């Protein structure tokens, strides 16, 4: 692995603080997220890891009482600046959720949703995007003969890969994944993990996970969150073999969390 200093920074987070009402959920977070790497966010429940990645595409603003200070630069542009359009950000920064959330539409329409809202109308263009995205999400062979069927008829693992395909269809630069395998069985989990390793070649990935083995298996860099703070962030190999902070060590050795 090359050293992170040479790589292009996609997200640059500075002094990020976030409150839900009076609850201080993220405390003074500073972080750089590098291009074409998998960055894993680990930590116990309620430590702010989901909140953090939802801040990267400003989905967190859907919570009514939220308050944010600090800056996040995406390719050098502050995403909280008033002229920055959130729709544009979310077109570049896709998201896969914890629970598979396909739309109650056909498999085809699910994947074509993003291109359609961004104005692609031609049937052959849509066909091409749908095929490419489903192949990218490693589910094309399983669904190519039933693209017109409702996505709800698929298994949980397949639904999640449809959601990943749906995300790929907007041709994002970054993919945020919020515990994408927590609702899946081990085999589906394995498939999604393989997929993440594959996707890293073309995309920058930030993945929240409860599962430390998963973080160790698939990520290049890992950040350990605790009570809304980043306790430690370094190369995954280093974080899991020689953690600097006592609390990181306690967590990864299973003494709490």
């Amino acid at each position, binding site marked *: 692995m090359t050293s992170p200093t040479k790589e292009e920074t996609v997200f640059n987070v500075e002094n990020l603080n976030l409150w839900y009402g009076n609850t201080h959920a993220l405390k003074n977070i500073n972080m750089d997220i590098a291009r074409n790497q998998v960055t894993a966010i680990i930590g116990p429940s309620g430590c702010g890891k989901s909140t953090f990645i939802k801040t990267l595409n400003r*989905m967190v603003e859907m919570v*009514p009482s939220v308050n944010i200070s600090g800056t996040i630069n995406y390719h050098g542009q502050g995403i909280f600046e008033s002229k920055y359009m959130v729709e544009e950000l979310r077109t570049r920064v896709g998201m896969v959720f914890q629970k598979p*959330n396909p739309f*109650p539409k056909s498999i085809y329409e699910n994947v074509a*949703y993003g291109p359609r*809202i961004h104005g692609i109308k031609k049937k052959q263009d849509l066909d091409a995007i749908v095929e490419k995205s489903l192949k990218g999400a490693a589910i094309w062979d399983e669904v190519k003969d039933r693209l017109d069927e409702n996505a709800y008829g698929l298994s949980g693992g397949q639904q999640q890969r449809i*959601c990943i395909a*749906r995300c790929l269809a907007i041709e994002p630069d970054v993919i945020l994944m919020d515990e994408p395998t927590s609702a899946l069985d081990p085999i589906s989990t394995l498939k999604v993990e393989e997929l993440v390793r594959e996707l890293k070649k073309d995309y920058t990935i930030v993945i929240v996970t409860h599962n430390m083995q998963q973080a160790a298996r698939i990520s290049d860099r890992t950040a350990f969150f605790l009570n809304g703070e980043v306790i430690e962030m370094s190369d995954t190999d280093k974080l899991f073999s020689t953690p600097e902070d006592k609390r990181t060590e306690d967590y990864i050795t299973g003494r709490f969390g």
Partner: protein
Amino acid sequence: MQMINNEKVKKRILRRLASNKFFKWLFIAATGLALLTLAVLLIRIVTQGASSLDWNFMTSFASRRAEDAGIKSAFVGTIWLMVVTAPIAFTLGVGTAIYLEEYAKKGKFTSLIQMNIANLAGVPSIVFGLLGLTIFVRELGLGRSVLAGGLTMSLLILPIIVVASQEAIRAVPGHLREGSFAMGATKWQTIIRIVIPSALPGILTGNILALSRAVGETAPLIMIGALTYIAFLPENLMSQFTVMPIQIFNWTGRPQEAFQAVAAAGIIVLMIMLIIMNSIAVYIRNKFTKRY
């Protein structure tokens, strides 16, 4: 220590089973009574009205002689009224529901609006008739027209449509909206492509049921001066009109015995229409309701 005493359980079990049975039969009796009432009503209306109900009845205008009297003008009037009421009530009602559920910030003002809409659904229909008479018939000078009647009916059923549509919209899971927003969709794209299609069966059901209430209403239309006796069909939105419940009300008030049978025949026509509308609503609900 064991808290459940098996001896005591054994002693009490017969009593528990007895009350179990008692309540089951109580609820069956309640349902039975309701069904019985409905059956008596239906049988009485059908036996009384069936003899007058024929094709002539559907194609004849009102008449002084019972044997010539028909429901044509009232039936067509009801259709006209629905055609005016439905689009207005649908647009206003669904629009309000979308605003309240998707755009309005949750707060004191929104809950005040919400409470008033719920209260509006409980306002007696005659009050809506007075409102229609003052605003549409007199102030706006629409006269006793189909348009004035349709507007009044729209207001009457508006709160029902708003509440039903709100419930349908609220039932669309939040994670679908999130999925759409996370792809860079705007609020309007999310509403029109995700929320409305998912909520549409519920919205349509609510609209049809509300419309069937409008079909059965009499008081507001009498208030705004819909006629009780006309021998012509409405030609445009400004025409005078009558509707089935008013025609029936008029017939039941006649002294001649023969008109009672005519009224019963009218009721049958009205009921068939309502049953068809309600069946469509039930069909839509069962067939298209999404399971997430």
